[in-house]
């Protein structure tokens, strides 16, 4: 970190992050260096650049950032110092989820320590660079994780996503140039600045650089979280790390990276966990924390639970999301209760398309459409059985 601030220019660091091919770890996988390069870094007294760390982890099935925040807060702070220098931000925020009470305490103590040791504040380590770092604890709502909704929330408003463009690098927090990065992404920065782009690239088994935090939850022997090279196969993760399925349960499918990703099934188990390879299999790597569907859990109830979550968490701004999600939720509920009709299945498919990309301001509804459309594809017979038998076979 010291070397980065002393010997490198802001654009050197952004160039280094670009060449390391660090892709954003929050779920979208956007190249971090490219995001930073959009920030105006020339001296300008009028503009106040901001860096914001997105620690609003709330994607169902996702618990990776919590481990980073609780386990190594100084790694994040060091990353934020270097990142702030690279984008010339003298003010930075960590937007943390209210439920992460332990992480908040640990982080707040670490920030005090960093100020005391001269890593934050005025003239950091004698380099002439100033940075103030603040924590903002959220008051709930999944939509705060969407970067422009997060910015509105930081401004004390309802967390509604903003129109893009302008992108946050042009007009972000309080109308100023802003970069928003995920906890896991920022936790990499000081390491890459110290050890270089080639070192980082060498850590993965694929073209994308680095390792990734992967998690598994559901009916497996050892649910948990592991840091592993990108490119490890799903099968390896499930069998070697999560210990395989729990006694008496069989595998039926999984969501590879949180609730807003498409189902993958048995035939996809040899897929490598990387952004491009999971996309080629028809899903998204998302947050890299998998949720396993077993044979004793009803797939309709599984999808209903997820769509209910998305319906409740919709901010209500765009019609496909505000109207589409509750409709989907009600139809799934009635199929699960045994009162669904066959016509619902076509309607669910068309609603999944209607909520898909291009119809809404943000990725909330498109994310909700992913598990729905893929459940209809892989578990269609289960939906039909509910409708024909007028009851849930699992009840």
């Amino acid at each position: 970190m010291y070397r980065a601030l002393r010997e490198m220019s802001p654009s050197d660091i952004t160039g280094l992050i670009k060449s390391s091919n660090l892709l954003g770890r929050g779920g979208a996988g956007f190249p971090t260096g490219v995001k930073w390069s959009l920030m105006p870094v020339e001296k300008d007294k009028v503009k106040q650049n901001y860096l914001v760390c997105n620690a609003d982890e709330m994607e169902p099935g996702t618990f990776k950032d919590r481990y980073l925040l609780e386990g190594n807060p100084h790694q994040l702070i060091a990353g934020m110092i270097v990142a702030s220098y690279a984008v010339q931000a003298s003010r930075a925020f960590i937007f943390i989820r209210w439920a992460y009470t332990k992480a908040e305490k640990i982080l707040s103590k670490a920030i005090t320590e960093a100020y005391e040791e001269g890593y934050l504040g005025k003239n950091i380590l004698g380099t002439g660079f100033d940075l103030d770092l603040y924590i903002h604890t959220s008051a709930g709502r999944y939509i705060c994780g969407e970067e422009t909704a997060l910015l509105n929330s930081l401004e004390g408003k309802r967390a509604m996503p903003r129109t893009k463009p302008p992108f946050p690098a042009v007009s972000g927090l309080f109308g100023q140039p802003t970069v928003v990065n995920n906890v896991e992404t920022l936790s990499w920065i000081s390491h890459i600045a110290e050890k270089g782009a080639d070192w980082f690239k060498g850590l993965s088994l694929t073209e994308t650089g680095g390792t990734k935090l992967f998690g598994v939850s559901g009916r497996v022997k050892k649910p948990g979280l592991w840091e592993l090279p990108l490119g490890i196969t799903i099968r390896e993760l499930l069998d070697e790390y999560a210990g395989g399925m729990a006694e008496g349960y069989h595998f039926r499918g999984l969501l590879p990276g949180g609730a807003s990703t498409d189902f993958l099934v048995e035939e996809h188990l040899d897929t490598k966990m990387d952004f491009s390879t999971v996309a080629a299999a028809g899903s998204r790597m998302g947050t890299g924390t998998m949720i396993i569907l077993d044979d004793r859990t009803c797939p309709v109830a599984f999808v209903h639970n997820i769509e209910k979550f998305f319906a409740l968490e919709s901010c209500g701004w765009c019609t496909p999301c505000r109207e589409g999600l509750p409709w989907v939720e009600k139809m799934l509920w009635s199929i699960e209760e045994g009162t669904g009709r066959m016509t619902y299945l076509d309607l669910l498919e068309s609603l999944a398309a209607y909520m898909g990309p291009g119809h809404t301001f943000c990725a909330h509804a498109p994310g909700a459409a992913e598990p729905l459309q893929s459940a209809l594809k892989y578990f269609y017979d289960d939906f039909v059985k509910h409708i024909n038998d007028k009851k849930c076979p699992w009840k």
Partner: protein
Amino acid sequence: MLNEKEIKEIEKEIGQYPYPAAASIDALKIVQKHHGWVSDESVDDLARLLGMSSEELDSVATFYTRIYRKPVGRNVILLCDSISCMIMGYETLYDYISKKLGIAFGETTGDGRYTLLPISCLGDCDHSPAMMVNDNHYNDLTTEEVDKLLESYK
């Protein structure tokens, strides 16, 4: 009326931002910390302090799930009903708590001791089913453990 301590804490938060209204969420949380919930009177007082209209502040207060605009019990039980906890059986816990306390989601016990609310994923999915009581997380729960820990909240 906001007391001096609240005003002091709110003013400290305002200092983090370019203008007072930006601290609205922090301010609502401070009021809630002191009173357990946010009343209409508090919204009016806060709005004046932050230079907003009461309606504007209320639109913020009602958007966020962790701002309570109705009184809650002394202890708030937040039971995760998201997908990983559903797979691991949160419904059994819900049935148990609901029967034991005689309340459904969204309700408060007659003695004001507990409020039971559903909550979205708490990030404890590797140790589900999970819940929070006030600020504390509880993982890998069974009905016996829930029984014991609920007793510890008076």
